[in-house]
């Protein structure tokens, strides 16, 4: 299973979201959050390790280097074999937040470029809120994109990914030990 499937018309546009590559003119943003019936510390034990993204359903394996230090890297292997390479840009365990960016992804897997993201846990007592936000450009670097690589397609794909990930965290935490 891929993060997202786009039409075969996009097959020629095998782009890699390297550092500051060419991109469209309009950066997109999204924020998704979920309430979890558990203490923030408990939620953080599930999502707080950059080297373990097993809480995101499409991810089969996380391999990386650098732990949770700034500039740490990880490669996510998705069910079906596609990979996504990411780099940690900020990590604050006390504030329960970190930021990272995608350094390499095929637009057929996730139709975005120049993607960066923050995730954080806040809360009190036995209530937490996980907030996941992303900033990215569409997968098509030029004007007049095909529909599957449009701004709308990028937002839809990221929203679906975030919603699936957050639901999975909630389930793991609330049903977990």
């Amino acid at each position, binding site marked *: 299973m891929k993060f997202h499937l786009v039409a075969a018309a996009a097959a020629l546009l095998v782009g890699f979201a390297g*550092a*500051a590559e*060419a991109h469209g*003119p*309009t*950066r*997109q*943003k999204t924020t998704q959050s979920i309430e979890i019936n558990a203490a923030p510390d408990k939620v953080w034990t599930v999502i707080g390790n950059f080297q373990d993204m097993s809480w995101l359903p499409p991810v089969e394996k996380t391999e990386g280097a650098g732990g949770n230090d700034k500039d740490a890297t990880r490669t996510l292997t998705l069910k079906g074999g596609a990979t996504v390479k990411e780099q940690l*840009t900020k990590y604050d365990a006390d504030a329960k937040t970190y*930021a990272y*960016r995608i350094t390499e992804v095929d637009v057929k897997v996730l139709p975005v470029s120049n993607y*960066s993201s*923050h995730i954080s846990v806040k809360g009190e007592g036995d209530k937490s809120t996980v907030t996941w*936000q992303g*900033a990215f450009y569409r997968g098509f670097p*030029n*004007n007049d994109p095909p529909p599957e690589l449009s701004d709308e397609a990028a937002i839809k794909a990221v929203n679906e990914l975030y919603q699936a990930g957050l639901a999975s965290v909630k389930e793991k935490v609330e049903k977990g030990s």
Partner: protein
Amino acid sequence: MRAALVALSLVVAGAACADEAFVTNQTGDDLTVLDLAAGKAVATIPIGGKPAGVAVSADGARVYVTSPEGKSLTVIDAAARTVIDRIALEGGPLGVSVHPSGTPVYVADWYAKHVLVVDPAARAVTARVEVGASPSGLAVTPDGATLLSADRDSDQVSLVDLRTLKRVATIPVGQRPFGVTIDRDGRRAYTANVASNDVSVIDLATQKVVGVVKVGERPYVVGLAAGKAFVSNQYDESVSVFDVSTLKTLATIPVGEYPEGVEASADETKIYVANWFSNAVSVIDVATLKVDRSLDVGDGPRAFGAFIRATPAQAGP
């Protein structure tokens, strides 16, 4: 003497308070007009086409806004805060700058290797000036003689003679220059280099880079005030400040998320920073290097260009 100085500074501060900000909200498809004295939004002007670039004319009469998705240039009567024209363009209009005389307007086409010369009265593109790849930020020297284009994907700045409309020089800078800013005496220019996380300092007389200053992650543009350079770091939620004489870093100021457009007040006592993700403008005090306050704007403010309008001081109409 001291009292006189204080009185003078009060007068200057008072005049500066008449500034307005014209902030392009790309996600929201509109523009927020901020009254910077009152510290609040006083108008929202619908634009469309995902507005990004903005240029207030030197006399403050007009504001030009680019819409890269809508392929247009919107002309705003700044005092009336109304759209008076929308000129159809081509490609991906992004960076914009107005000639100090008020016309023409220069528009960078993000997808082409040229800058459009637009005559707003004739509502027409009168020339296309060859530059490098993905021209982004534009700036005209105060004497109106030269246009600078930050050619993002060529890692250079192009210098265009505005009399002949020919490129006369290219200056290699850091990687992926986005914003370019010329100081008020036309002596130096500064590019924010997105991929190399630094600022190139260009001496315009010799057309050479005379300094490189490391800043934060993904710098967007440089704002200048009172001998200091303020650089928005998109990925660091911060503004780097350095001294333009020594090129030494003075401070890193926390601001909102994804800071982008930066510009100084007319009297150079304040710096305004548009925070794209936070939907707010941070107001930085140039003397203390602290954020004074944060002003709400629309969704996805970019304010890429000259977005501060110095309105007539209290003595005016």
